[in-house]
Structure formats: C-alpha cells, structure tokens
C-alpha cells in the first residue's frame, strides 16, 4: 500500500517537473519565434502597439534585404501597375510604393560568407585530420606542450591578435581579400578541429591499421583506406562545428574587410531601410542566418557536447 502511494507521488513529481520544463522552454523560445514572425510582418505590424500576433504575412522583409529600393510617385505607381513583366520581388515592393533599383550589397556578402566559411572549413578539417592522426598514432616529442599550445590559440581574444594581423595583411595585400579571411578562420578552427578529431581517431582501434600494415599496406594507404573511413562521423561533426564558427564570425570580418570580402554578420546591422531601421529586413537576414544553424543543431545533437568541450567530454 505504502509503495503504491510512493509510486503515484513520484509520477506526480515527474509530471510537474516535465510541465515546468516545457513551459520554461516555451518562454525561452519566444525571441526565436518572434524573430521568425517579424521576418514575415509588414512594417505596420512590427511597430504596432500592443505587439501583433496575427497578421497577413508578407515578403517585404526579404525584398528589403536583397534589393535596394526607391520611392515611387503616385503617377509612377500607376505606370508600374500597368506592367505585366514584374518579378515577384517587384510586386512586393510595389505594394509598399517602392521600385527595385538594384540588388543590395547583402547578396554579395552572403556569397562571401559561403566562400569563406566553406574554404576555411575544408582547410581546417583536412589539416586537422592529418595532425590529429599524427598526435594519435605517433610518439611526438613535447606532445603535451604542443597540444596545449594548439588549444591555447583558441582562447586568444580576436581583438588582441587582429591589430598585428591587420598590419601584416596590409603589407602582404591580404586586407579585404577572401584568401586572408579563409586563412585566418582556418587558423582559429584548427585548434577545435585537431582536438575533436584526435578524440575520434583515438577511438579507432590501432589493431586495424597494424593488421593492414602487416598485410603490406603502406602507412599512407592504411591512413587513407582504414582510418579515414572509420573516422567519417568525427570528420562530419568537426566540419559542422568549423562551419558554424566561420559562418557566425564577426570581429575579424569587421576589422579585416571593407567592401570586397565583407561577410554577412558585420553587414546585417547596417541594413537600414528607407525610413529608419528596417526591422523586417533585419529579422529576415537573421532568420536566413539562423536556419542553417538550427538544422545543424538538430542533425548534430549527439555530438554537441563533444564539440563545445573540444572533444574532452564524450557521451
């Protein structure tokens, strides 16, 4: 009898805890949901008091993000309405009395972000997997110190190293170039990539390679045909973490680029509309930036803990 009441009690406690956790989660996610809805709100709904929850969705924000627009006079608007060759973006802009003049700089900046994040990630993972293999399989003089040094590079505040790198880049002609940022992001991702991948490679039994070496494989062949395929999950997880860092990076991009190689993060704050801050455009930009990250968080949830602790904690 006593046992039964005890069980009901535990069940009630668990249910209460679950309820509390779920409601906290809902409260916690309000800003994300708000960002999502703001991206699709017309201007009036954004600044309405009290805040609107229901509204007619529009793509104004996205058009504002991707195109430069100019105001139309009523006569011009009539003219525009007659035309049948308008693109969807032009139609959305016309609703606000605007005409599209050209693509905004943001399109190019997004392209820069893709090139730089992609390029630096490939480099960081390739170099990382090679070094991680060396650390994992060979006895290296001063290994502990080297590993410590590699991790410590991650702890440096970007602002501190940027001053000499800025001067160096200006001399070498790397200021405001894609290559300059790619190398810099590679360097900053290397510490994570080496540490994470070393953990993954440590988990692959040495016996596999040893057997292959006895069978006549060279060391390089064993690495290529035995270790790499086994480490593929680790390589995927590492790639994703490097991509996120490079994708989100702000400080280096702000200080080491101006027009040509500028990425999206330092640009989103300067998306200013025709009258005041264009919140819908900012929300649209933020949303486009968040979606890939959110997908990745879901896909990689098993490795998140490992990623954020540089591979130290595994589950």
């Amino acid at each position, binding site marked *: 009898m006593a046992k039964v009441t005890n069980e009901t009690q535990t069940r009630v406690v*668990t249910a209460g805890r679950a309820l509390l956790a779920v409601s906290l989660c809902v409260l916690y996610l309000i800003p994300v949901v708000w960002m999502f809805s703001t991206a699709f709100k017309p201007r009036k709904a954004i600044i309405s008091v009290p805040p609107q929850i229901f509204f007619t969705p529009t793509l104004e924000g996205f058009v504002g993000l991707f195109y430069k627009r100019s105001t139309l006079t009523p006569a011009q608007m009539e003219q525009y309405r007659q035309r049948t060759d308008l693109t969807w973006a032009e139609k959305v802009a016309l609703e606000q009395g605007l005409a599209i003049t050209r693509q905004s700089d943001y399109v190019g900046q997004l392209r820069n972000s893709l090139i730089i994040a992609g390029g630096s990630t490939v480099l960081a993972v390739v170099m990382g997997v090679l070094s991680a293999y060396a650390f994992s399989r060979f006895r290296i003089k001063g290994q502990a110190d080297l590993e410590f040094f590699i991790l410590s590079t991650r702890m440096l505040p970007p602002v501190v190293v940027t001053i000499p790198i*800025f001067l160096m880049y200006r001399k070498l002609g790397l200021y405001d170039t894609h290559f300059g940022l790619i190398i810099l992001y590679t360097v900053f991702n290397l510490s994570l990539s080496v540490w994470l991948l070393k953990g993954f490679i440590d988990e692959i039994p040495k016996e596999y390679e040893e057997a292959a070496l006895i069978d006549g494989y060279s060391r390089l062949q064993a*690495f290529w045909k035995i270790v790499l395929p086994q480490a593929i999950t680790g390589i995927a997880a590492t790639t994703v973490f490097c991509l996120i860092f490079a994708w989100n990076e702000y400080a280096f991009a702000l200080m080491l680029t101006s027009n040509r190689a500028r990425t999206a993060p330092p640009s989103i704050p300067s998306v200013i509309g025709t009258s005041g801050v264009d919140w819908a455009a900012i929300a649209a930009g933020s949303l486009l930036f968040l979606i890939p990250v959110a997908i990745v968080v879901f896909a990689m949830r098993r490795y998140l803990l490992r990623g954020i602790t540089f591979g130290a904690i595994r589950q």
Partner: protein
Amino acid sequence: MQSATANTTIPSSTPRRPVSLGDPAIQRLFLWPTIILLIAFNIFPLLYSLYLSFTDYRAISDQPPQWVGIQNYSDILNDEQLWVYFRNTGRYVVTAVALETLVGFGIALLLRSKFWGSGLVTTLILIPMMSAPVVVGLFWKLIFNPNFGIFNYLLGYSAGKGPDWIGNGDLAMWAIIIVDVWMWSPYVMLLSLAGLSAIPDYIYEAADIDRASPLYQFFRITLPQVAPLLLIAILFRTIEAFKAFDLVMGLTGGGPGDATELVSVQLYRIAFLGQFNTGKASALAYIVLIIIIGISNLYIKYLNKVKAG
C-alpha cells in the same frame, strides 16, 4: 625443398611496398603545416604587438614606430576612464556567469530524469547558443524597444510606459546580461546534464537506505559529483564573457554614453577607429591577454583532468 619454401615465404613476409614514406616523414608532413600556420598567425603577431606596445605607432600615419618605453602601459594604468571599462567588464562577467550557472544548473536538474519530449526540449534550447551573437544582439534590440518591443509587453507595461532597456544607462548593462544569460545558460545546462547522468544510481540508493534527506543528498552527492564539469562550464563562460564583443556591438554598441563599454569594445575603438592608436591598443591588448591567459590555463588544466578521469 628447403630453399623453395624460403623463396616462397620471403616475399609474403616482406611484401613489395610501393615507394612510400617512412613514419617519421609522414609525421612531419602531417604535423608541420598545422604548427607552422599556428605559429605564423599566433606567435608572430603576439611578438609583433608586444614590440608595438612599446611604441607610439599609429597605423594611419606614415611615421615609423618610435620607441617610447613603458609609456603606453603607464598611460593605461593611470587612465581613470579605462578603469571604468574594466569595472564594466568585471560586473558583466561576474553577474552573467553567476546567473548562467544558476539557471543552467537549475534547468539541468529539471531535465535530469527523462520524460516524453525532454530530448526535444534539450535540443531546442541549444539553438540560441549556436547563433551569431551579433545577430542575436541586434534582434534583441527590437525585443527591448520601449515602444513596440515584446519584452516590456510581457512584463505587463503598456506601450511607452515601460523602461527603456537600451537607452537607459542604468539598465543597458542588465539588457546585455539578460541576453547573455538567455544565450549561454544552455551551455552550463548541457555540461551539468553530462555530469548528472554520470552519477551512478547506487550512491542515491545507499543514501536512501541511510535515510539521508534530499537536501543532504543534493549537497553531499549531486553537487560534488557535478562540480568538475560545472567548473569547466564556469571557466569557459568566464573566458568567453571576458572576450565579449559581438553581442555588445549588436545590442548597444557600448552605449548609452559608456554604460556598456567593455574593454574589448574600447580596444577595438582605440585600434581601429578615429586615431588608430596602434601602440596604445597593443599595450591594452597585452593587459587583456595576461588576464585571459591566467583563466585559460585553469580551464585547460581542468579540461585535461576531466578527460583523464
């Protein structure tokens, strides 16, 4: 017969290897690119800026650096205004990290025993942590807007009557702390959850048999067992908060006045805006660096300890 067996066995035990590199060569080939790149982009710049910190160099002037000795350092240490920025930074780091620890650990305790949907909840609240801080900061500016933001609305103020979180000098720091706690409490939570799940059940069972109170169990079992991971979370957050730059730039830009001007933001201003005071900025950077190295050493030491244990 004997020679025939020898002839057939020798090729298979020492097979014809393709022309290949020996282990030492491979080791160098695999390791050196990484080491060279890291030295070129970390050690060299650090030495260069150490030199610059003793000069009056300005990156926008044509004059070559002039040696000024410890002038920059003494200027910085005697600059009352810079101490204000250090105080701001300290207040921000201590408050934000303390709150993150409490909130993160609290949520971890809630999510500790699995329930239907707990996995989804855990994953969903990790999204903000992985987003770009500058974007998060910028977006919270809209949320904090005194006229049409939802923050004041949810607090129950009517439009325009609530506090102006970004525009008010006393509140702006709290605005940054709130966003930082929102973003980073899940980090503490994730590490705490890992620590909690590693505590074996039998310890609690033994404590139950001994009729230990829940409070006693919490302080004598749960807390000490989670402590190493919790400490890692706290150290990492301290380092990151000390470096905070993106979030502040997105949310307040250091304002209003210099209410939220952190050392890292000030460093950016001295180095890259206005006068481009490269020498002085390098000196300040070195002071920040020494503080960070101190905390980082602790962090890496504990990380290795946890990894080994």
